[in-house]
Structures are given as C-alpha cells and as structure tokens.
C-alpha cells in the first residue's frame, strides 16, 4: 500500500546492523535509532516454509477425511463434493501460504527509540502498539529450528497488561533481537516493588 515503498526502502537500512561485539554492547544502543524498520526479508521465505508445512499437514487430514467419505458415506453426492473440495481447498491453502507472508510483510514494521518500541502490523485490521521501556517486565528471545537455519529470532515482550500481556515480534535477525532486548530491559537494578 502507501507505505510499501518506504518499507522496502527501509529494508536496506537494516542491513548494516553492527555485530553484537562487546564494544557495540557497551556503546549507547545502536538499535534505538528511532527509524521505522521492516522485518528481515528472509522472514517471508521462513513464513512460506512454515505455511507449506501447515498446508501439507492440513491437506493430509482433509485427504483422509475425503477417503473416509468415499468408503463410508451412503449418499452419492457427498463424496464427489469432497473430492472436488479437497484439491480446491489444498490449492487455496497453498496459495495463501505463498502469498500471505509477502503481503503481511509489507504491513509489519517496528521502531525502537529511547522510550520504548513501537510495532505496526495488520493488513486489514491494523494495529500500532507502543510498549514503553518502563513497562517491560521481562523479554524472551527464542529461535525455532527453522528460524535457526535462517538466522532469525523472535522477541516476546511481557508487560503487566491484560490484553497485551505479551507482545511478540517475529522475523528479526537473532542478533538484532538480542540487541533490542538489551535495550528494552530496565538498566538500573531497581526494586520492582
């Protein structure tokens, strides 16, 4: 949409992320640049692969269901309907898992600055979520098996809230997720009374 160009431009801004050396960790956090970033483009492929796995799985279940209908159903039209519906549904799922990651990628971005992090996402139902650093309770950085292959990681930010008790951000490079975590976690060892 209108932000697509700007976002794809800002893809490039993510490339020169400094490696998480001891020096960069000590310096004022370079992640808090106040610039809106897109996710790492590799996330599109990652999501497509996860989507493909889900499609194969669901399609398998549907195939089994169709098979059972062929064997067991009394009516004549129900198995035929299922036989037509199965490839159609599978194709739809496959198309969705191929197309959707790219679409949702265009609509997801984040911005880290001194007070906290802002996340924008949603293709139809759009959301802009602001998490102030002062409200962060704890943060998880996780990496699944496929994510590890891609060098990507996920950030889960926990607050004391209700609806937004956990805010997740997928599709960052693992290093960057760690940097953001270090930036967002409260620095001063305060008594969290």
């Amino acid at each position, binding site marked *: 949409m209108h932000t697509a160009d700007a976002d794809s431009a800002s893809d490039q801004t993510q490339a020169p992320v400094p490696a998480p050396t001891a020096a960069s960790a000590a310096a004022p956090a370079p992640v808090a640049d106040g610039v809106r970033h897109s996710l790492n483009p590799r996330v599109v492929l990652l999501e497509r692969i996860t989507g493909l796995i889900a499609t194969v799985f669901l399609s398998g279940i549907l195939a089994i269901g169709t098979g059972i209908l062929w064997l067991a159903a009394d009516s004549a039209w129900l198995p035929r309907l299922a036989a037509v519906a199965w490839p159609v549904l599978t194709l739809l799922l496959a198309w969705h898992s191929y197309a959707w990651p790219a679409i949702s990628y265009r609509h997801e971005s984040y911005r880290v600055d001194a007070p906290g992090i*802002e996340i924008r996402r949603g293709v*139809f139902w759009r959301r*802009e979520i602001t998490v*102030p650093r*002062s409200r962060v309770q704890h943060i998880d950085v996780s990496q699944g098996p496929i994510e590890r292959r891609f060098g990507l990681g996920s950030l889960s930010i926990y607050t004391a809230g209700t*609806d937004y008790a956990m*805010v997740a951000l997928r599709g960052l490079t693992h290093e960057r997720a760690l940097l953001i975590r270090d930036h967002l976690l409260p620095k001063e060892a305060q008594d969290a*009374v």
Partner: protein
Amino acid sequence: MPSDRRLHPLSFLFAIAGQLRQFLIPGLVVVFTAGAAGGEWEPWLMVAAIPIALGAFVRSLSYRYRLDDTDLVVRTGFVFRKERHIPYARIQNIEAIQSVVHRLFRVIEVRIETGAGKEDDATMRVVPVAAYEEIRECVQSRRPAVAAPAAGVEQPEPSGSVVLRLPARELILSGFVDNRSAVLIAAGFGVVWELGLFDRVAGLLVGEAVSGRSVLRQTLRAVFRGAAPSLQTAGLTVAGLAILFAAATAISMIWAYVRLHGFVLRRAGDDLRAEYGLFTRVATTIPLRRIQTLTIFEGPLHRLFGRAAVKVETAGADAQEQGATGREPLAPIIRRAELDRLIEQVLPGVRAAGLDWQPAAPGAFWRELRKSAVVSLALTLVLAQAFGWWALGPLALLLALSAVRARRFTGSLGWAAGSDAIWFRRGWLWRRLTVARFSKMQIVALHRSPFDRRTGMSRLRVDTAGAARESDRIDIPYLPAAVARDLHERLSIEASGTRFQW
C-alpha cells in the same frame, strides 16, 4: 528471629469443612440421581472426599507462619515441606472473612493476595482475631514507604478516616437499584413455571383452566396467531410476571442488606479498608497504589435516585476470582455529590473537575447505526421466513430504536486526558466512566479496522493490569484518525515517563 506461629487449634475443623463444602453439591447430585436410578454403588463415590479431607487436615496441622522483617513466611507439609516467602511489599490485598461459625469460635479466615493472581497465595484458615490484627499491622508497618508526596505528611489515626459509610436505607436502595440478581431469579422462576413444576400448587389454588402450565406460551401463541388473547390469560400473565419481579426485587434488597450490612470504607494511610456483612463479616484492605483503574457505573435507576456505583480493578485479581470470593465494589452505592470526594481519596491528585472532554468523530453515529441496521435486517429476514411480510413492521420499529440508540450512544462517548490520568466515558442507559492514571497504563495500541480506515477513524486501547472485565476497559472507539494519533503519541510519552509499580 521471630517465632513460628500456628493456626488456631480448631482450624482443622474449618479446613475439612472448607474442602467438604466443595463436594457438597456434586455429592448431593450423585446421591439423588443414584437414588432415583436405583443405583447402589454410586453413593460410595463420596468416599473420594475422605482423602481430600485428610489432606486438608494434615495441611492445617502442619501450617506455620512467621512474620519476618520483610517477608511473611508460610510453611506447610510434614513430608513434602513447602516454604513460601511473601514480601510485604508484594501483598496486594488482605481479606478477612468471618462467618457466623467463625464468630462463635472467635476466629477469622485471612486471605493474602499477591500479584500472582490465580491461587490465593496464603489462605490462613483460621487464626484468632488478635493474630489477624497483628498480621495486618505488621504488613502495613513493615512495607517500604511509598514515595507518595502528600500521603507521607499527614499521619492519620490508625483506624483511619471514614470515606464512605452506608446506612441501612442506602443498602436497601442499592439492592433495589442493582437488581441484576432479581432479573436472574425472575427468569429462573419463569423457567420453572413454564416447565410446569408449579402446576399442582397453582392448579389447586386457581383451577386448571387458567393456572396450568404454559400460560405464557399460550398467550404468545395466541398473539402470533393474530387473535387477541383472552383478557383473563393476558392479565394473569402480566400479573404473574409483576409479582415475580416484585418478589425478586425484595429478595435482592434483603440480600443486599444482609451482605453489605454496616458497610464502612475507611482510608488509613495508604490503604483503603472496607468492612461489611451481617452474618459473614468481610474485612478487606486494598493498598491505594494497587488500584489500576476506577470505574463509575450509573444505570437508569441509579440516575433516578441520583446515585452511582464505584468499582476498582487491582492488579493480579482476575474477575472470576473476584466473583468467587464475593468481593464487592469499592462503593456499592454512593450519592453522586460524594463522587468527587471519593475519587479524591482513592486516587489522590486526580481531579474530575475541569476536564476537557472530547467527543467521538462526527461520523460515529452512521457507523453505529449501520451496525445495528445490519443486525436488524438479518433478524427481519429470519422473521420474514416464519411470519411473512408482517415482519417489516418490527423492522421499522427496530430501525427507529437503533437510530435513537446510536445517537445517544455516540453522543455519550467521550475521553479526556487530565494532568495525570486518562478518562473514558460511554453508554446511554448504562453509563460507565473509567479513569486510569498514566502511571498505570501498560501499553497503548491504536487499532484501525477496514471500516475505520474508510471513515478516517481509529480506536485507541489503553491496556492496564487486571483489566479482566470487558466493560471496565479503556477502549475508545470512533476517534478521528488525527486525534487518535496525537493521543496515542501523548499517552505513549506519558507512560514511558512514569514508572510502573506493582
């Protein structure tokens, strides 16, 4: 080192009773259904209650607590020992419940709640009353001082200043006004009646022809057939419903009086303390800084009598649990003139006066109307299947009603950002006003649905801790997009500029 303390010597009785009570209803069901079915082994299922009661017995014998300098330490178990440290600073609420039986033995059940929410962290079932006083004093005095500027200066007397006291008249009024239970009871009676359980009784009293089962059904059927129902039947239906409703309201009033008898809300230092109950006395302590949001509720009857009800949400206590422990609103009923004073006491420094209230976007009315129009149309289509084109009559009525409702509802929407809190009001007949301090906001989120984007609006959600009840959230719909953006930005800055304390 402070010494270990035991519970009251008789506490095992209460522990067992407390466990068995949970078995009572299912147990009775089992016994009765088994009796009806002629089963013989089902009642033996109740044997399962014995190990549970035994467990409660052992736990209450092994229960020790200790009031350390900074923590409350609870130890339970003989074989598998468990020691739990609860820092005084983490304690959200101390609740004490004293039923009639408790009072007979001069003991009290104490529940200590922390932010952990799900389990009540330390339920002392039961301790002597003097021990409860000691625990409360200890928790209050050894808590680290709060950095509230004004609260530290004044040092009120230990019992505290009275914020709200409800005489019997107000309690009964609250039962009358807040008769949700009455509606439930009436509905229950109605179901029982329709199912014909009162047949014999009523049949004996007024004769089979008018009393019999399903007077209501007959009436409705007559109406739908287009024939006028017999005057007698209609009159009986109306009278029956009126009597049921009146009886239910009376029950609700009596129940409110019994439950809330002697309601006193005090402020002692940084704590709010409420005490109430005729048979079961409840004393609850809420530290002021635990309060996340405050909601003022006004139904139509509230407004008729110039009253309102005030609820607060504290962190950690989820709504279901509040229902289970029967926690009452902060002020079940209060004169509207006293609201400002109450807010001043509960949220010191937050002022309701002089707020700059902002309306919803001008297009909000149309969106709200469109929403109910779609629902009305769908309903009409369903009705048209059943009754033919006569259903168009109700449609016109529904649309007119929708228009009035949409106008009133969108007119009632409003928000205001004060110097240190965000206010949000909504509702036409049932009005709610919710306020959250900036320091209690967790996440500010801007939502834009496809409809929002087409009409240039946004929805702003302010997330707080413990906002379990849908109705008490700050979730402002139909904001003009630019206004929403500014407010989002401002609230984000305010939130990050303050420190959140549990």
